[in-house]
């Protein structure tokens, strides 16, 4: 099978999966109780029955709620494919705008913690595999098993208990200090000044103390959530890295490298780890949904203003558009990531033939 054929097969597979997921996404929210129209109508109107009736009829017509299900389904497919997610019924704002507003917070959380977790997990896993059966190996396996099976929210509560309640080192809620929102206390690390000498030039001046305040404010607030998610994820990466490294370290080319007199560090990181990193890539690609689950819980514990808490609120108030959009985006991300990982295999590992 040639590379082109392989890619074609993966593309078709991905598209089929996408359509399946979109249908699931549609039918789940079709059977979910709750009425978007009543959610959308402004609370202060709720007392006036005639106004509500008029508005309800108008909205039902506008959103085509009474159309035949088939038409609604295809309209939904079209909207999803054109990246048109509609509005949030309760926030009364475009879902895309809201996602763009909350995504950075969640990306910091998930991205930061995943990077840390991979670094720690892979390095410690590689060492554990190298000294297999030793004290460090036992310790790291046991500790990662423990962190792997600890409930995330409990880990978060305990970290709050230690670092906020007892030590008072880190704040326990929100993404930035609350006093920033009051009366222009928000740090201004950069200032635009027009130079007096030349009327044309506008300079960006950096205020170091403000910049420090800005960065440290966010860093302090994100420390505990990122730590929680890092601990939550690193166990899995460590176990995976250890298993693949054990596999890789028994290969012939490692024996060859050692026989050549290559430094042990170089053997581990350059020869073995490079080859052992394939399954890691797949696991990262597959774990988007997993990370989002972690984010929902962690953001709930730390009142973090990101996607996770927003999704949770959307579920409790039954704001379907948000959920449909998020499910769809996550599914697309996972499918894409899988697709890319499948292709990357061939680039990283030249032994793989399609």
């Amino acid at each position, binding site marked *: 099978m040639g590379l082109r054929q392989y890619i074609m097969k993966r593309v078709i597979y991905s598209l089929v999966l996408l359509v*399946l997921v979109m249908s699931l996404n549609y039918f789940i929210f079709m059977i979910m109780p709750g009425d978007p129209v009543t959610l959308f109508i402004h609370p202060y109107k709720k007392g006036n029955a005639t106004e509500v009736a008029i508005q309800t009829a108008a909205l039902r017509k506008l959103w085509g709620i009474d159309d035949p299900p088939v038409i609604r389904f295809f309209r939904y497919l079209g909207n999803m494919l054109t990246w048109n997610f509609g509005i949030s019924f309760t926030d009364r704002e475009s879902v895309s705008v809201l996602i763009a507003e909350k995504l950075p917070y969640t990306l910091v959380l998930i991205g930061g913690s995943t990077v840390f977790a991979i670094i720690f997990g892979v390095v410690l896993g590689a060492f554990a595999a190298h000294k297999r059966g030793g004290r460090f190996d036992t310790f790291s396996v046991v500790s990662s098993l423990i962190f792997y099976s600890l409930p995330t*929210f409990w880990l978060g509560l305990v970290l709050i208990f230690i670092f906020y309640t007892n030590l008072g080192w880190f704040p326990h809620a929100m993404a930035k200090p609350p006093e920033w929102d009051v009366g222009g206390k928000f740090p201004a690390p950069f200032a635009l000044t027009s130079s007096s000498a030349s009327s044309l030039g506008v300079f960006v001046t950096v205020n170091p103390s403000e910049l420090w305040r800005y960065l440290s404010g966010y860093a302090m607030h994100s420390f505990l959530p990122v730590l929680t998610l890092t601990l939550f994820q690193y166990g899995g990466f460590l176990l995976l890295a250890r298993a693949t490294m054990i596999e890789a370290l028994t290969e012939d080319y490692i024996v060859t490298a050692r026989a050549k007199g290559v430094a042990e560090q170089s053997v581990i990181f350059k020869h073995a780890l490079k080859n052992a990193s394939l399954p890691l890539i797949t696991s990262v690609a597959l774990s988007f*949904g997993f990370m989002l689950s972690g984010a929902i819980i962690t953001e*709930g514990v730390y009142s973090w203003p990101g996607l996770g808490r927003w999704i949770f609120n959307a579920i409790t108030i039954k704001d379907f558009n948000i959920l449909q959009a998020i*499910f769809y985006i*996550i*599914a697309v991300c*996972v499918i894409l990531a899988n697709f890319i990982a499948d292709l990357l295999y061939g680039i990283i590992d030249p032994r793989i033939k399609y």
Partner: protein
Amino acid sequence: MGNIVSKILSPLNKLKGFLSIFAHNFRGMIGLLIILMFTFMALGAPLLTPYHPIRDQWLSGAYSAPALLKQLPKALGGMPNSAENFAVTDNKDFSDGLTGWNYTLSTWKSNTTHPIAVSYDSDVGLNFSRKDAVAIPGGDGSAKITYLRDNGTSGYGSLSVAFYRKFTFPYAGTPRKWVVNINMLPTGTVSRSINYTVPIDFYNGTWADYNLTINYLTVPVKVYMYMQRLTDGRMFTIWPYSNYSARGMDFTKGSSDPGNQIPGIGTLKWDTKSLDQYWPPPNTPWVITDLMLCDSEIVRFPTTGLANATTADVVTQMFPEGLLPSDYLFGVNMTFVDPASSLKSKMPIETTVYLDNMWLTFQGRIWGILGTDQYGSDLWSQLVNGSLISLYVGLLSAVLSVGLGLIVGLSSGYMGKYVDEVLMRFSDMLLVVPTLPLLIVLIAVIGPGLENLILVIGLLGWMGFARLVRSQVLTLKERPFVEAARAVGAGKIHIMGKHILPNVMSLVYVSLATSVPGAIVAEAALSFLGFYDPSRMSWGRMLYEAQGSGGVRYWWWVIPPGLCIALLAIAFIMLGFALDEVFNPRLRMRR
């Protein structure tokens, strides 16, 4: 005969062989031990704790600490002086006369007897609940306070009586909360009457003299309840509280109001605001339901210097650590308002107030093995009963998901073609959608019962195992023994059940053990997010309640449930690993 015996013995021998290998697996044995421990906890819950995890409330004050902390010094996080539950209930129903109770009458300058008399009435007992009130004739007795003025005398003005008892608060620490109960029945005497001759004006203009029977009139009674600290004489009124805000609750020492003198203790100054709404209406037996319970959570103290005084302030002001243990009085003060200029002043007056069931309880700050939650329910009982829920959810969901995975994997692997394609795409679809939000959405659709949790967790957990079984079946399918069976003419179902299934059973056992932790943690996570079964207290819900009520700062509330979840999860993982090693000798060698 020998055939039957060997048929019975051969699985037994197999089991024996399995156990002898398993018994040498250290991790597996530890895991099994932990699981057995939690099973004992789940099944033996009635032996371990007498309390219901949710229904038995106010066993102690909210957020009580474990009792063991009382034995630890403060430096180690102990709470050596903490108050425990405590009640002043001796002779609360006056079944023993007025023993233990005292009263003080306000000054009476005349040389006649004081118009107020305090006595014991063995014929009347009061039994009130918040809904209805019953005065039981011939009950267990009550205290009777009578105000009497003869016919023709003018009003005496305001006269008062304080009816109280002394108690010693024995602990050196502030209690969490107190509750005072009192039943009162203010009444004019209806049985005695006097005949009046009254001229009556008829409509047709004629007059006639008629004899009318008029009951004795009552005078209004102002009532307040108080507690007094004898160490410094400070007095606290605890009822009436108006609109839950501060109003005349504090009585400063030294202001002169001869009507409210309490000899040797101090002078009271009545707040001048109107209390009309608390005045009992005349002649009818009247129930002051509001007086049933005075609760430190409702009482508020004056705002001067203590703007928006909180609940804690009430208790800590009345029972400050520095002054404890100390003697206190608690009682009721009644003022009979009988102004000299009133219309009633020339008529005979008799007003009687019956008092019964006067008691005072304190809720402590220390309780049981693990303390209490925000409703005063026993945390230890919640922890013990939570193990049953976790085991139940974990095992049943694991069985459900492994069963589903087995069926899907077997049919997908063995049937191949379209069956395989459809089933695998379906499982891919479920793998691609984020699990936790999907779980929550499904729970929101079908409702948060425990069985629904099991169903949803089981239905979303089979995909990984199905893939594992499928890949195993794909290799088994090509083995000679399957080909032989097929050649003999065995059906698909027969081959799957008799030849392939036994070969994947080891996978089933291992996966049963390793998918329990996921289910346990998923249940805990859903409960923590608020999707719990409202009739049951699981470990996840304990943490939810702790976070929602601010109990996160108490380690004895937060640490145990999480630790239990983690321990049980790790135990099942260890069991799964051990089973894996027992079934795959290759793994044993490689270690």
